[in-house]
């Protein structure tokens, strides 16, 4: 068969595609359980952190999630930690570059936040991306929820608001827009929790 004949070109292209795609399909299939486990760990550990449940490693996280957290029909979660009941739900809202998805946990009466965890964000690394840092997320832990929800303080110290009663957290310095977006998503989640979400 001549190399430039149509038959050769078609046969060669099909054969080459089959030859190179087959190993990829096998590799994808072989690593699928691992990828699924990674994804499950990412999702479950975020819920555990929002509820303030400590875990040591992925196996431990899976065990605690199965034992303590109940998945609710509306997509939310409930958990009983140290004898108190908590509820949590996932809330997505606009961010600066893409959407931000949070898990917001509060006590049963939605009077105090239990914790806020970031599930997904595409904010600027080093600026808005700092909402993933522990000092920022820890500000929400145990914060009293005011009549208007939680407010973000743009004139704060930028290193964390330790007062748990003022319904206020510090914004990330240099990321006022991202901080505003997080405030809006947290408050939308609080509104959902108040109106009986995650039950």
């Amino acid at each position: 068969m001549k190399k430039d004949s149509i038959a050769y070109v078609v046969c060669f292209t099909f054969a080459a595609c089959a030859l190179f795609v087959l190993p990829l399909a096998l590799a994808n299939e072989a690593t699928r359980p691992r990828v699924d486990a990674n994804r499950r760990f990412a999702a479950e550990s975020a819920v555990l952190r929002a509820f303030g449940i400590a875990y040591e490693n992925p196996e431990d996280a899976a065990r605690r999630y199965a034992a303590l957290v109940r998945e609710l029909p509306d997509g939310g979660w409930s958990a009983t930690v140290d004898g108190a009941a908590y509820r949590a739900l996932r809330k997505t809202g606009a961010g600066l570059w893409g959407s931000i998805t949070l898990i917001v946990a509060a006590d049963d009466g939605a009077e105090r936040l239990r914790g806020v965890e970031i599930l997904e964000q595409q904010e600027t690394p080093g600026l808005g991306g700092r909402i993933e840092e522990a000092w920022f997320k820890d500000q929400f832990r145990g914060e009293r929820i005011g009549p208007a929800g939680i407010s973000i303080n743009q004139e704060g110290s930028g290193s964390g608001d330790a007062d748990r009663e003022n319904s206020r957290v510090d914004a990330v310095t240099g990321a006022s827009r991202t901080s505003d977006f997080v405030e809006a998503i947290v408050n939308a989640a609080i509104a959902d929790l108040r109106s009986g979400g995650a039950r």
Partner: protein
Amino acid sequence: MKSNYGKILKDGIWSNNPIFVQVLGICSTLAVTNNVKNTLIMAAGVTFATGLGSLTLSAIKDLIPRKVRMIIQVLVLSFYVILVDIVLRAYLPAVSKQLGPYVGLIITNCILMGRAEAFAAANPPIASLVDGVANGLGYGIVLTAIAVIREFLGFGSIFGMRIAGAWFTPWTIMIMAPSAFFLVALALWGAKSYTARAEARRKAAGAVRSR
């Protein structure tokens, strides 16, 4: 033949460096160099894909019909890139999440197609492998140098470890894409003026000798 491989290596890493001589692969330079760890993983991915891609394409070059040459090049290169993506997703999920779409976009990195067309299409397999790896290394070295500067000035850290003291105010601009433009331009300028000067010196020495 051995000295030939040495020359191919030197070409890829220095005299024909993909970043500051060929000016290829700049998009990923802007995207992934604000953090040294991600840069190294990206560079390793590019080196792997361009090395093995060139090797494979060179090995089958006599079988490839001219009409579908580029289709086959893209097929082979994306095969290796997707392999990297699958491995990262399974074994380094945190890195995979941070690099996001950029691993898949290695396929569109001009260095890969450039080496396949410019070298692997006309050279034996082992030389093509060396050429691909050399270009990957040349790319990786420049990117790592830029990433070290950007991460240090932008976060005050290297490899995520804080190096600068508490007095240090991070330069926000260094984390954002524009700073990579400045630094790539500076690297280009430095390398070009160095090679121009070396060239002039060599010419001057030659002129003296011939007189």
